[in-house]
């Protein structure tokens, strides 16, 4: 496969290396002379100097016979433009664009440039998944059984503080199984009172985290995560 990569920053350069290693033919285009010199030393004829949003530069890089164009410069408008002309003017079948500012993702979508890959967005999504809320810890995940055990901290001002376990109102499909207080844990009864500073262990069906957090969050759980 013949690939044109526009932008030889960290992303572009490493992509180029990997794609070359996998046996592809490739040209990487870079407009900064100093950066180009560095990249050219390693990639030699696979590196080309020039502004990748200039059509003649793209033509020189062989865009007309490219199977794939990857635009990974630091400017979203440049990446959009490069992918648009690659697809619409030069008939390249597949384009991939880097979206630097996730707020610009809507422009990529509007102008039909897809897929657009946003590292910030990917990491944000990972964070949401891996670290759902402050004060909430995954102790055990049993995805097959669709069960998990979490530990949640009862902060001062939490709606659960001072309530009996049966009155906290944890959703159906979840159960308070233990309370940790002053370094020791105990299995609570329905009328055991939860105090601020406690850590509460719950077993729950997957997907109930948000509802549970709402019962413990001092801010009422109304904020966006």
């Amino acid at each position, binding site marked *: 496969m013949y690939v044109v990569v526009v932008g030889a920053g960290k992303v572009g350069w490493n992509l180029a290396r990997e794609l070359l290693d996998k046996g592809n033919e490739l040209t990487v285009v870079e407009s900064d002379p100093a950066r180009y010199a560095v990249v050219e030393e390693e990639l030699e004829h696979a590196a080309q100097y020039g502004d990748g*949003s200039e059509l003649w530069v793209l033509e020189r890089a062989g865009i007309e016979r490219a199977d794939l164009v990857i635009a990974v410069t630091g400017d*979203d408008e440049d990446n959009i*433009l490069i992918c648009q002309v690659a697809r619409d*003017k030069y008939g390249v079948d597949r384009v991939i664009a880097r979206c630097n500012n996730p707020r610009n993702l809507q*422009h990529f979508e509007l102008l039909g440039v897809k897929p657009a890959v946003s590292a910030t967005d990917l990491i944000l999504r990972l964070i949401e998944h891996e670290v759902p809320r402050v004060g909430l810890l995954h102790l055990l995940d049993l995805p097959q059984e669709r069960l998990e055990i979490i530990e949640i901290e009862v902060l001062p001002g939490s709606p659960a503080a001072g309530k009996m376990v049966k009155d906290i109102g944890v959703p159906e499909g979840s159960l308070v199984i233990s309370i940790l207080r002053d370094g020791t844990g105990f299995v609570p009864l329905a009328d055991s009172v939860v105090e601020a500073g406690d850590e509460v262990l719950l077993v729950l069906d997957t997907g109930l985290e948000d509802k549970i957090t709402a019962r413990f969050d001092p801010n009422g759980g109304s904020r966006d995560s």
Partner: protein
Amino acid sequence: MFVMIVGSGRVGSAVARRMLSEGHEVSVLDEDPEAIAHLEKGSDHSWEEQGGSFTVGTALEIDALIEAGIDRADAFVASTDGDNTNLVIAQVAQKRFRVENVVVRVLDPARAAWYEQQGLRTVCPTKIAIAELENAVLEAA
């Protein structure tokens, strides 16, 4: 009519002043708060006093475009110093906000020609300069 101009440099500000003097409603967006000075050139009154409006924000920010009034713009001029920025926001104005009359400044003749074919009204100062220079040389000969 309501004219929105993005980029208040030499070109954008001159077009804005002219439109205002012709009695149109004019809103200018620029990322540089100092760029309003271009709009006030040759006048004792501030741009707002003259009836124009000015918003600080970058061209790709939807919120800034909306704040500047793109929703009700009859005409949209993209005249920042970046060809690619101009081409992207012009398409956003056309496709997302359905602005009727969209004009884009593009310095690179090749990109100007291609996007003209794609249905954008482009103005290429480089092409105009080349033609004028050629004519001037030929006339002098």
